[in-house]
């Protein structure tokens, strides 16, 4: 590493913090891609890869991306759930690589639900 000055130390810190936001557990939203056998065979892997690629392109590190099992509606896979803090989770169905990117831009980043793709609001109760 090059010798640091106070300015370059601060710049480095800001850059490193942005990269490591997920490690700190600080996230503006969580996107869960349902990756049961049904989801994967319907293309959930491609959806996941497209989502991660789009996040990287946009330089966003504080969106948590997670996977989960089958959501129970195998016929509507690939599915994903978007959860923004303080808002009800939204499930999207019949996704593909392009749709997930639109969900990312409009809902995850923009804050407005993409109604055409949305299946339902809320999640099942646990237990």
């Amino acid at each position: 590493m090059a010798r640091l000055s106070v300015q370059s130390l601060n710049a480095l810190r800001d850059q490193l913090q942005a990269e490591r936001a997920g490690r700190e557990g600080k996230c503006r939203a969580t996107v869960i891609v349902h990756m049961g056998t049904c989801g994967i065979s319907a293309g959930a892997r491609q959806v996941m890869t497209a989502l991660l690629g789009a996040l990287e392109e946009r330089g966003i590190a504080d969106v948590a991306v997670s996977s989960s099992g089958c959501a129970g509606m195998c016929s509507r896979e690939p599915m994903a759930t978007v959860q923004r803090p303080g808002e009800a989770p939204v499930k999207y169905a019949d996704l593909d690589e392009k749709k997930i990117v639109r969900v990312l831009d409009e809902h995850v980043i923009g804050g407005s639900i993409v109604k055409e793709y949305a299946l339902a609001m809320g999640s099942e109760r646990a237990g």
Partner: protein
Amino acid sequence: MAVKRLHLMVCAGTGCVSNKSMEVKAALETEIEKHGLAAEVDVIPTGCNGFCGVGPILLVQPDGIFYQQLRPRDIPHLVEEHLLKGRPVQRHLYTPPGEKGTIPLMSDIPFFHAQVLIALRNRGMIDPEKIEDYIAREGYQAAAKALTTMSPQEVLDVVKASGLRGRGGGGFPTGIKWESTKRAPSENGTRWVICNADEGDPGAFMDRSIIEGDPHSVLEGMIIGAYAIGATRGFIYVRQEYPLALKRFMIALNQARESGLLGEDILGTGFSFDIEVHRGAGAFVCGESTALMASLEGNVGEPRAKYIHTVERGLWNMPSCLNNVETWANVPPIILHGAEWFTQLGTGDVSENPWGGSKGTKVFSLAGKINNTGLVEVPMGITLREIVFDIGGGIANGKRLKSVQTGGPSGGCLPEELLDLEVDFDTLTAAGSMMGSGGMLVMDEDDCMVDFARFYIDFLMAESCGKCTPCREGLRNMNMILQRICDGKGQEGDIELLEEISACMIDAALCALGTSAPNPVLSTIKYFREEYEEHIREGKCRAGVCKALITYKVDADKCSGCTLCARACPVNAITGETKKLHVIDPNVCDRCGACYDACTFDAIIRV
């Protein structure tokens, strides 16, 4: 910029590493590669998480899921379930002792959420071998702030106002020590700062964990201290037995030098300072300031009388400021957040008198008969009960607590009645124990207090340098007396003799090793005198530890003749046929207790 969706923080502290956490890490990397997740998932080795009792530990971020006791063979399933399908694996989650439900989130586990982290602020969150990880968590910001916006005097004033006291055990106000070093006359202006990383207390591993988990925090504290004091060179005295700590220090030093954070013209501010590491040979007495400095000079590690303090004439007769690892690690946050922030935590009032209270937090290593063995950082003023029962999870195996020892070999044993004492420097000293460097040993009803005192006096006798008579001869004689009490040959007057020798050592020993050495004896006599008396007068050891005072017998009503005890006996003292009563021959029995542990019918009795 590569976005990683998941960060797997694998504990790489010594405790977890010895439980194969590096193999767990390798298994994680193999599985991640196999599932094509390498671009999405980061595996980060971190310093000690403190919860050593349940290691190897894995924290999955940003989810905050805490996995424990992982084995390499658990990993394929875990990667498939959690990383691919997003389902935390129940059976590797934490379950509190005596309960059935699991606690998935690290932040919900009582062991963690009752702690306040200052010295351990980066615990488990950084890779200690990467300076970038430290910088991302505000690392070197305090040094930058001090060097560019504060005068040395202003830095000193903040540390003084914070009320920070030496975490190595003495509890001497750090700001006063810095000020004395700064003011001490030095012909050529040479002053040193020294870091005491010679942690020698049995069962204490606070400093090791700080160095292994966050070495840069110690370096940054030393840079700030050197700037305030006017030192241009620093030394770290680390014991030989800490190879991982040493390695991490060396990596951190090189990284800091390459980045212009150590050496000439730090951060382009014109201030120059560098640090040298010295490996000690592992003598307990070298944790004492003058012995440490003698050892640093290349001489025999023996203390000297302190008519002249080391802040005036220390290492090579130059003004020297020696602080412990944890003290140095506390400095950067104090400079960054201010003295007022620090004084919000803790006891007393330090605004007028630096000895008026204990501020901030203290790191303790919890060991002994406690459920959650490990490392904890708690605010000063917390009670021993909260540490032992809320954070420590209480006593293992449903036994009753007998005593808590604080302060290592130089500390004392406090009985259960004193568990509501507030933990601070002065309260513990007043009760006959001490804060010490932070070892905390919990004992239950199966521990004999006389034997315990004998153990520590034995340790101290071996570690006494022998330079002064009170310590050398005092310990030898105390050891002899304690040994004979444990052997059932104690005499009337032995307790009083122990007290007399102790008083002499406290008055006349040369250094703190000798003056504090009687603490284990005096505190056990003070709070558990009846156990000493039982040993001497009745030939009885209620805990069943002192072998000369116990016999094992078979309870005829309970013995089923299963032969387990006879097979466990290493000296063939037990005879009996299958399904018939067994008998122990007291003349052959060497009282090892193997039959007692082996019997499943509680038929072996200890009297």
